[in-house]
């Protein structure tokens, strides 16, 4: 197994390099340094200031190879934007945020916990809620209950998440006053701020989730082994909850484990709407303030997580599917 993981990690290296290259192209080739500088320097920057900013960020260096002699006359061909960018990312020497004047890595450390406090409960709760509902619907498959439930699922899916959030906040927090409208607290006090976002996150994913799980279940229900189990005298519920569920876990696991990296991404909208100071908010702020170093670093780190997540998915297959073995 260790052998397998090592091999997968080695295979991921070219992908990581590719991600670095993509971010370089996006942020160095398509974006003009002067424009970025002006956005960061506020009202009335003097040209000298702009130039100083560009120099300080190394954005005046040549793109790929630096053939100009430096101050001491030596030529350092790899002191270029491309190579600096690559070493910065690959060696985890993350830059400072242009807007917040703080190390991106420090920002991440601050933001990750609030994001997780909302995405992890939402993630677990939504599995806990959608899976049983999907099983129930699979139990009633073919009946009008199934058709009705499916229609409701499609309807729930067709409501944009904005509406869940806006109407949910309005009803539950503004009109009925069950929850705080906005805010967050670090530590245990956070729970009362998390309830509403978590409920809304679960609700907004309910339709799609139930439908997906139902499809997975029904694909399994049609399988031959189900008939065998029924012929053995296993009750329909037993078949559903034991035989079908364990088989259905395979596709479910793929989707679930792959979505784990996104737990760290946080929920952009929920964080923005409820004032949770997490990764989503960081990202939004970076967007609005054109904070390239933050976005660049986030793209890179999330890609690493995503790659790790996909390796994790493959490993987790072995837990539910005996047919999969490492080789």
């Amino acid at each position, binding site marked *: 197994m260790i052998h397998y993981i090592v091999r997968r990690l080695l295979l991921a290296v*070219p*992908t*990581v390099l*590719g*991600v670095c*290259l*993509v*971010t370089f192209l*996006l*942020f160095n080739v*398509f*974006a003009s340094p002067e424009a970025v500088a002006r956005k960061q320097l506020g009202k009335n920057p003097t040209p000298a200031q702009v130039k100083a900013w560009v120099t300080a960020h190394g954005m005046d260096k040549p793109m790929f190879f630096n053939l100009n002699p430096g101050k001491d006359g030596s030529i350092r061909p790899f002191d270029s934007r491309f190579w600096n960018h690559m070493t910065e990312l690959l060696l985890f020497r993350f830059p400072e945020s242009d807007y917040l004047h703080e190390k991106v890595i420090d920002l991440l450390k601050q933001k990750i916990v609030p994001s997780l406090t909302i995405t992890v409960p939402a993630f677990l709760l939504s599995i806990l809620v959608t899976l049983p509902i999907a099983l129930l619907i699979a139990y009633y498959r073919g009946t009008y209950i199934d058709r009705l439930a499916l*229609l409701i699922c*499609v*309807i729930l*899916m*067709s*409501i*944009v*998440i*904005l*509406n869940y959030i*806006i*109407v949910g906040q*309005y009803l539950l927090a*503004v009109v009925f006053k069950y929850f705080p409208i906005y805010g967050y607290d670090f530590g245990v006090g956070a729970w009362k701020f998390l309830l509403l976002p978590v409920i809304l996150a679960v609700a907004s994913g309910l339709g799609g989730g139930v439908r997906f799980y139902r499809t997975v279940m029904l694909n399994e229900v*049609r399988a031959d082994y189900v008939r065998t189990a029924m012929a053995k005298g296993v009750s329909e519920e037993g078949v559903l909850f034991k035989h079908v569920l364990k088989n259905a876990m395979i596709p479910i696991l793929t989707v679930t484990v792959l979505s784990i*990296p*996104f737990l760290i*991404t946080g929920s*952009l*909208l929920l964080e*923005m709407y409820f004032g949770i100071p997490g990764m989503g908010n960081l*990202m*939004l702020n970076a*967007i*609005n303030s*054109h904070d*390239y170093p933050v*976005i*660049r670093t*986030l*793209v890179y780190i*999330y*890609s690493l997580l*995503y*790659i790790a997540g996909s390796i994790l998915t493959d490993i987790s297959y072995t837990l539910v599917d005996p047919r999969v073995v490492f080789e």
Partner: protein
Amino acid sequence: MAESHLQIAIKRIKRDRLAVSGFCVICLFAFIAFLDSIPSPRRDVGGVQWTRTVLDALFQKEVEISYSPPMTMTGILNRTEFQLKSRHLLGTNNLGEDVLYNALKGVRTAFIIGIVPSVIAAFFAIILGLLAGYYGGWVDDIIQYIYQVLSSIPGILLLIAMLMVMERGLWQLCFALGVTSWVGLCRLIRGEALKVKSMEYIEAARALGASDLRLLFRHILPNVMYLVIIEITLDFSSLVMSEAVLTYIGIGVEPGTGSWGRMIMMADRELANSIWWNLTGASVFLFALVLAFNLFADALRDALDPRLREG
């Protein structure tokens, strides 16, 4: 053969009452988008350089001072031409703009956002997927590498990064959405092309001396087209919704383009003031189109996908 498949598919869809009603709604919306795409034959008043369309001419209501509830009579700046009825059927927003008109203006944007990125994505996916599946070898390796890299970057971030470095705009958004979403389809097409490639009739055509290009586009492409069509219809809903969300968080279409996301963004604060019509107007339009497409796309997939047909 293909003909009869199509006929069977149509028959299957016709049987599904929900899908048929979904299709009708889509047609209605498409008609509105069409009206909003052809320039109005009428001349503008006062030489204002609006790029006016038939929809503008038909529905544009005058601007009021501020909010007015649904069914209010139009008022202060009396310009009585080109009005369907002299009422604000869905009221006006804080700028006094007619909500119904704004919502109708969102239809065309929704259709563009719903279709153009898919088409762009399909373009990339078809070309790269076919090449990878057909030629295999190093071509396949390179293309697989490209989409391996792209799919390793979480879509939303890649999208944000692209929109950050580009100017904001409807077409830029379409492009960014398209470029970030072709990987899945490409994978499917590659697999399908691999499968079709080894089939006997392709072998036969090759033996008859058909060129690679001809094989690719005359013989293999039609066999993977159903995947493309399914993908495009299935993606429509999520694209329309993502436009609303992206505009809401400030990286979607630029101001001045009709957009339900923008309407929702402007309206979300109004609920507390019991001004519900603006939010409701945008949301209902969005919901209706998305629901119609969801219902229709499901039926279409069930009807077209041979894998499901046999199952």
